[in-house]
């Protein structure tokens, strides 16, 4: 080394390994470091950007998430020397409000491989320069950069190099955080269901025996694939392997040829990460509401045991109020017609009809309650309204309503037994009609968990089966009560209008609420299955209409045809299109500003001291829809929520969802709606099941209206 060569002097200063000092920039300390004290010509050399954000600040992974920017390195190296890409340690997920980012909140090494040709004959000491650029963020972001350099001597090929003792641990722990290539026998596939912002992206990893001891996360390299703020639903079983579903990003355009990313598996204190490359394939989405980590166990003591008499009374009252619920109206209208007609009948027959109707209601309630209790006994997390989570049941209801509607429109005459309309005094079959009207009333009432009924049913389901059954029967009795009373006290019937020619017109008009109900049922069906399921149901309705049109036509051909059409309509109910419950990302909130509910999200928001409103709803719950229309989507409530900075989370129970069922149980409910308000992150208050804007405002305390 010649003393008077200026560049030589400069290099001499830097030639001492480790002389590159860390650079302090606002909120970040950065340094270029090397694993070894010298560079091996022809060998593997590892450098790293050591980047240490201040406590509370973070820098970003290669996919930064919703906002942010990945750290970049631009090298200036002697000719022949090459630096590879950054080897990114697996990132950490951080959430700030609705924004989710992937990055590092602690000191991290970004490893870079460096190659020096084996026949290196250049300078004995290599100057390595890099410009590092990053964005460091807390609630605000500051771009940072540093020009870093390091000079290392080159060791000839074949000569061992010595590790730098200062960085040995740092490099080895950084390596432990690097994703490993996925084993060759893993079968990694993905599928896309639905579209941007609402549909699902689902990953399946088969052949990997992954421990289910802790959280499993997937981080995609592409930033526009997933909705980062949506929870990842994880299902891990020996049968299907590992599956993860997450809502598609709002900016997702089309399915890529391959999805690359990192799978991170936490098992106790150890964390393993794999780089995976998923190919398009058939992957069943993980059902909505499946949490990555098991939810809190239900707080059994959350509801004080209620006095049995009180419970039975409230069940009775709840049943009574059920008569006023919008979902019962179509059936009520039919029953009302038969009541008006029955006024002409002798009192004995009226009592008979009232009793038959009551029996129908009670038998159906008893049957449904028995089924519900048996299912729960078997460990299934189901609640009231579970029938409407079954697509076949919904399709059958649609057929039924449509058939009744056609009959009321006059397309077909059924001998009037089923409808209880226009029956003669002598027809004993009329009782059967009343019985089935009762059955129908219960079937369509099930989506409406009326006020009081929620408490009663929640209580019932926590009780021994016999007691539970009693509660359900009290509820049924409540539903049947108005007609039962009119049957036994005929003078009450005088309050109804007189029978006359207007009734035929009225009957025809009443067909239209039924058709609208069919529309609603098909919409629900489309939500549970998909549009194919809906199309199959529409095909069934067409066949049904054909059969009914033929109904009163004589002749062998007509008989054969109507039989064939009916069988085909029923046969369609067994097709996979209707039987398959799609996991499509329906729960993703469709209204601006509403987030999907998860226990975790509620906990996060409460930890921030935010006021949280949680709304458990279902497509088939008309009470919920009416509340949304009347109260929740009113300008007054929107304004109130905006003023109070309320985070609005929505849990969609349209499809069976154990996490939501469990939460409903915690509040002594077995059905939706359920509204919870956590003022400033505090303890939840339960809002009534029928909302008005002033009830919502009242919940915020005096002076909020």
């Amino acid at each position, binding site marked *: 080394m010649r003393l008077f060569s200026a560049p030589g002097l400069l290099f001499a200063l830097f030639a001492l390994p480790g002389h590159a000092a860390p650079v302090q920039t606002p909120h970040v300390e950065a340094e270029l470091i090397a694993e070894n004290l010298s560079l091996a010509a022809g060998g593997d050399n590892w450098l790293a950007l050591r980047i240490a954000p201040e406590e509370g600040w973070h820098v970003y992974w290669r996919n*930064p998430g*919703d*906002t942010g*920017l*990945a750290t970049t390195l631009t090298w200036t190296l002697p000719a022949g020397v090459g630096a590879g890409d950054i080897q990114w340690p697996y990132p950490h997920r951080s959430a*700030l*409000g*609705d*924004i989710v980012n992937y990055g590092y909140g602690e000191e991290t090494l970004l490893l870079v491989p460096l190659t020096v040709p084996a026949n290196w004959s250049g300078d004995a000491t290599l100057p390595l320069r890099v410009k590092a*650029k990053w*964005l460091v*963020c807390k*609630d*605000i*972001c*500051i*771009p940072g950069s540093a020009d870093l350099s390091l000079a290392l001597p080159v060791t000839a090929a074949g000569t061992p190099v010595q590790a730098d003792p200062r960085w040995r641990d740092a490099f080895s722990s950084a390596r432990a955080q690097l994703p490993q290539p996925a084993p060759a026998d893993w079968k990694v596939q993905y599928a896309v269901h639905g579209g*941007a*912002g609402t549909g699902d992206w689902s990953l399946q990893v088969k052949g990997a025996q992954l421990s289910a001891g802790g959280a499993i996360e997937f981080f995609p390299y592409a*930033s*526009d694939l997933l909705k980062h703020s949506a929870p990842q639903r994880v299902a891990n079983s020996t049968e299907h392997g590992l599956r993860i579903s997450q809502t598609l*990003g*709002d*900016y997702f*355009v089309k399915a890529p040829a391959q999805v690359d990313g990192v799978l991170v598996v936490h098992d106790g204190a150890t964390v393993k990460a794999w780089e995976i490359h998923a190919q398009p394939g058939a992957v069943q989405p993980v059902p909505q509401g499946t949490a990555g980590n098991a939810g809190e166990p239900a707080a059994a003591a959350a509801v004080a045991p209620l006095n049995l008499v009180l419970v039975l009374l409230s069940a009775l009252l709840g049943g009574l109020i059920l008569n*006023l619920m*919008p979902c019962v*109206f*179509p059936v*009520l*209208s039919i029953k*009302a017609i038969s009541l008006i007609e029955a006024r002409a009948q002798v009192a004995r027959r009226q009592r008979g009809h009232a009793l038959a109707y009551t029996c129908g209601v009670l038998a159906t309630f008893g049957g449904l309650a028995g089924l519900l209790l048996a299912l729960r006994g078997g460990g299934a997390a189901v609640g009231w309204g579970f029938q409407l989570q079954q697509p076949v049941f919904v399709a059958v209801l649609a057929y039924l309503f449509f058939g009744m509607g056609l009959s009321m429109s006059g397309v077909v005459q059924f001998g009037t037994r089923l409808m209880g309309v226009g029956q003669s005094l002598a027809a004993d079959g009329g009782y059967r009609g009343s019985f089935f009207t009762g059955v129908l009333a219960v079937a369509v009432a099930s989506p409406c968990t009326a006020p009081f009924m929620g408490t009663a049913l929640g209580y019932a389901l926590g009780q021994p089966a016999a007691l539970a059954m009693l509660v359900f029967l009290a509820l049924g009795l409540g539903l049947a009560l108005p007609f039962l009373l009119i049957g036994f006290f005929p003078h009450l019937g005088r309050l*109804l*209008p007189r029978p006359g020619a207007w009734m035929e017109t009225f009957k025809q008009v*009443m067909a*239209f*609420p039924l058709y*609208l*109900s069919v*529309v*609603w049922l098909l*919409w629900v069906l489309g939500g549970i299955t998909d549009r194919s399921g809906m199309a199959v149901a529409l095909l069934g309705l067409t066949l049904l209409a054909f059969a009914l049109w033929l109904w009163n036509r004589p002749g062998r051909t007509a008989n054969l045809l109507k039989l064939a059409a009916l069988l085909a309509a029923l046969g369609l109910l067994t097709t996979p299109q209707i039987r398959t419950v799609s996991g499509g990302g329906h729960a993703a909130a*469709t*209204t*601006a*500003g509403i987030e999907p509910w998860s226990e975790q999200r509620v906990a996060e928001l409460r930890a921030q001291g935010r006021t949280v409103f949680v709304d458990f709803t279902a*497509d088939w719950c*008309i009470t919920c*829809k*009416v509340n*949304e*229309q009347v109260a929740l*989507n009113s300008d007054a409530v929107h304004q109130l929520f*905006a003023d109070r*900075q309320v985070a609005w989370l929505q849990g969609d129970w349209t499809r069976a969802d154990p996490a939501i069922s469990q939460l409903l149980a915690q509040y002594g409910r077995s059905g939706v709606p359920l509204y919870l308000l956590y003022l400033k992150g505090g303890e939840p208050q339960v809002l009534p099941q029928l909302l008005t804007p002033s009830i919502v405002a009242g919940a915020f305390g005096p002076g909020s209206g």
Partner: protein
Amino acid sequence: MRKLWRFIVAAVPGAILSCAAQAADAPRIGQPAPDFSASDSGGKTVALADYRGKLVVLEWTNDGCPFVRHYYKRGNMQALQKEYTGKGVIWLSVISSAPGAQGFADGPRADQLTRERQAAPSAVLLDPSGKLGHLYQAITTPQIFIIDAAGMLIYSGAIDSTPSTDPDDIAHAIPYAKNALDQALAGKPVTLPLTAPYGCSVKYQ
């Protein structure tokens, strides 16, 4: 009883309509852009409906955000504003930062920023409550929405293809928003109508 029937007839379609209305809430490409009215920096109320028949750009902005600064630093954003307002486009810069948060501006401050940066938007909309931002589900600054003469949303996403806070990168990036505007002005469909926005989070309340 009559009242009940009236209720049936009202409630069932009401419920169905409300569901249909909800599904349409999120702004979607090719769908009508959500209507809004907001105060501009001069206190005037500006409504989207006023601009039917013109192309409208919504630019979410925050003068403290490094991703925004890099677009204003060498006049890139200002040039876009001048070029397109010159071609009859309505350019609305929107500030959704809450009071006390980075980028918050009242009317005078917003006007001062416009002067200092020699920016040329048609108006600066003040949205401290975040209502407009949430309506459009804007998540970053900068983020661009373009609405065509018929009021349809034709572009939503990033200003360009290169997430960066360095003005040097602008020249190498694909100018997504500019391309979309050029195509729309030429009466052509926008080839890339939806891109992932990048930048700072919008500093909502």
